[in-house]
């Protein structure tokens, strides 16, 4: 570049480093620069920590910033570039949702109950990302115990959407989404029980994947609803999503729900075009009440996919979708009430001990340690499982679960993927739904059926309405991650929505 301004060496070096280190680089772009030694792992980690210092006061994505863990990660990553064992994730700054155990680093789950809990072990996904060479820079904010859709249920503070700081980032993995969207890290892990990765990915204009139930091991993930929970990545691009997924999938002896199958090569799946793929738009996901801007963005996005050779199958209807929300809000709280019975103030976590006997201590521990939404769900679940009501609620919900699953299986005989909005609205304002549990629950109406059926779904940026992100969700049959990533990647080759940066 002959006409580029040349200044003193140190100045121009800083100039180029800044150019090489935009906060919005993808994992793929960072990896190339690290491999070519244009940047060191220390440069990249320092830039991430600096970015956190600059913007996190406004975004509040992090509960804990782990500078020590980052510098240990940098030393290991540098060594791997030297000895030639670097992977695509080596030296890449990452954030982990605070419900995944990190040895020696507080794992609070967004709750007073675990405010001082320091796990003696790493979750399998953390172990695997460390083996791949990631540089962990922090643990992210979340709705308490992953129960919520806005991150306002965090016991500590709400997180703000980088696209509009007055609005929510979605939830429950809102901290992870905001950390990636604000350029603080290149990727993050979240967990998804009813949409907790896909809804915030849509709200923050990111790629977010909920893998097939059982694909990613959950050892070390704080349990919420065991038949629904899955871990997955938040990234800027779908190609990055494939890289992170590759690093965390695969059988784990410590998780009895882990699928023992051979793992495919996800990045390789991106190389095939989408000509002839059949896409369905289930009418229940495009109701008359859908926000007009969201509907328009989705129509345009589907037009792009058609232009790439995909075929739209008309007339797909999934009538049981209407029953998914009540089914979910019976199954998830029931399982939560059983899983959260372990917080008794004895072995770890918050403990009240002013009572006159053991039961009083336990009741006070749970009264003071849990926030309102967690209590609401424990109560709902305890009721649904209690004598006399089990058949009417939990068993009934499990039967409806079968109906919802079967209906999706039939749809996947006609379609390779279903295309829907990831949420019926653009990101809402902080405080807007916090006092109305049912309105809050409705914001997950398009993501919940996926968890009920155990299938995978990918959210990716589809456009904007007045500067606010709209997400597109692609659902596929069990273990169809390759197809979903392939469709998403083809869409991103043809559009630049995922390359937009928020006005931070």
């Amino acid at each position: 570049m002959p006409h580029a301004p040349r200044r003193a060496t140190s100045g121009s070096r800083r100039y180029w480093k800044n150019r090489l280190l935009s906060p919005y680089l993808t994992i793929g772009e960072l990896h190339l620069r690290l491999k070519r030694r244009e940047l060191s792992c220390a440069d990249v980690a320092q830039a991430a920590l600096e970015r956190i210092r600059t913007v996190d006061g406004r975004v509040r994505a992090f509960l804990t910033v782990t500078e020590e863990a980052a510098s240990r990660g940098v030393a290991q990553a540098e060594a791997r570039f030297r000895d030639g064992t670097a992977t695509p994730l080596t030296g890449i700054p990452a954030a982990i949702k605070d419900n995944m155990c990190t040895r020696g680093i507080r794992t609070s789950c967004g709750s007073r109950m675990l405010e001082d809990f320091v796990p003696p072990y790493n979750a399998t996904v953390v172990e695997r990302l460390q083996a791949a060479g990631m540089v962990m820079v922090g643990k992210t904010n979340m709705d308490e115990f992953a129960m919520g859709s806005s991150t306002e249920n965090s016991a500590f503070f709400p997180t703000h959407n980088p696209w509009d700081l007055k609005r929510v980032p979605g939830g429950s993995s809102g901290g992870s989404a905001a950390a990636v969207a604000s350029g603080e890290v290149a990727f993050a892990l979240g967990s998804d029980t009813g949409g907790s990765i896909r809804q915030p990915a849509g709200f923050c204009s990111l790629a977010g994947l909920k893998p097939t139930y059982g694909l990613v091991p959950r050892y070390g993930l704080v349990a919420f609803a065991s038949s629904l929970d899955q871990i997955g990545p938040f990234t800027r691009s779908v190609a990055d999503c494939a890289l992170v997924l590759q690093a965390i999938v695969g059988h784990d002896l410590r998780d009895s729900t882990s699928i023992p199958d051979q793992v495919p090569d996800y990045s390789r799946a991106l190389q095939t075009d989408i000509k002839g793929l059949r896409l369905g738009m289930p009418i229940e996901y495009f109701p008359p009440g859908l926000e007009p801007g969201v509907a328009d963005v989705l129509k345009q996005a589907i037009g792009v996919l058609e232009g790439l050779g995909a075929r739209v199958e008309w007339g797909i209807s999934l009538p049981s979708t209407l029953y998914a929300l009540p089914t979910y809000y019976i199954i998830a709280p029931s399982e939560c009430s059983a899983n959260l019975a372990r917080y008794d103030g004895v072995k770890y976590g918050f403990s009240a001990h002013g009572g006159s006997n053991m039961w009083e201590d336990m009741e006070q521990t749970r009264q003071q340690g849990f926030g309102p939404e967690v209590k609401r769900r424990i109560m709902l679940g305890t009721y649904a499982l209690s004598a006399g009501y089990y058949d009417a609620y939990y068993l009934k919900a499990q039967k409806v679960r079968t109906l919802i699953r079967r209906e999706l299986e039939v749809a996947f005989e006609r379609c390779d993927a279903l295309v829907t909005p990831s949420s019926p609205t653009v990101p809402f304002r902080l405080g807007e739904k916090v006092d109305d549990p049912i309105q809050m629950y409705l914001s997950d109406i398009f993501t919940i059926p996926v968890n009920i059926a155990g299938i995978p779904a990918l959210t990716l940026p589809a456009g904007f309405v007045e500067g606010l992100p709209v997400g597109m969700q692609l659902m596929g049959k069990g273990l169809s991650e390759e197809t979903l990533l392939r469709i998403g990647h083809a869409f991103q080759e043809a559009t630049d929505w995922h390359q937009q940066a928020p006005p931070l």
Partner: protein
Amino acid sequence: MALTQEEVSHIAKLARLGLSAEDVERMREQLSSILEHFQVLQGLDTSDILPTAYVVPLHSVLREDLSEDSFSPEDILANAPRPEEGYFRVQAVLEE
């Protein structure tokens, strides 16, 4: 599907969850309204449908019963609210 305060207090007891009088009333209103929304399921005929508990058809997973290293007592007790001489201290469980 309106719950009574007594029912709410009974559920709280089952869940070992302390609730203030205010909490009980707020919980009664909110749970009643949420349960109302569940009623739609009762209209579905599911008499011939088998329930789905887990979506992956995996069966009981067993491994060889081998002894291996585990956490040290110090590691485990590091998070205990009231550790004492290698134990978790609790109030008396058995009463006189």
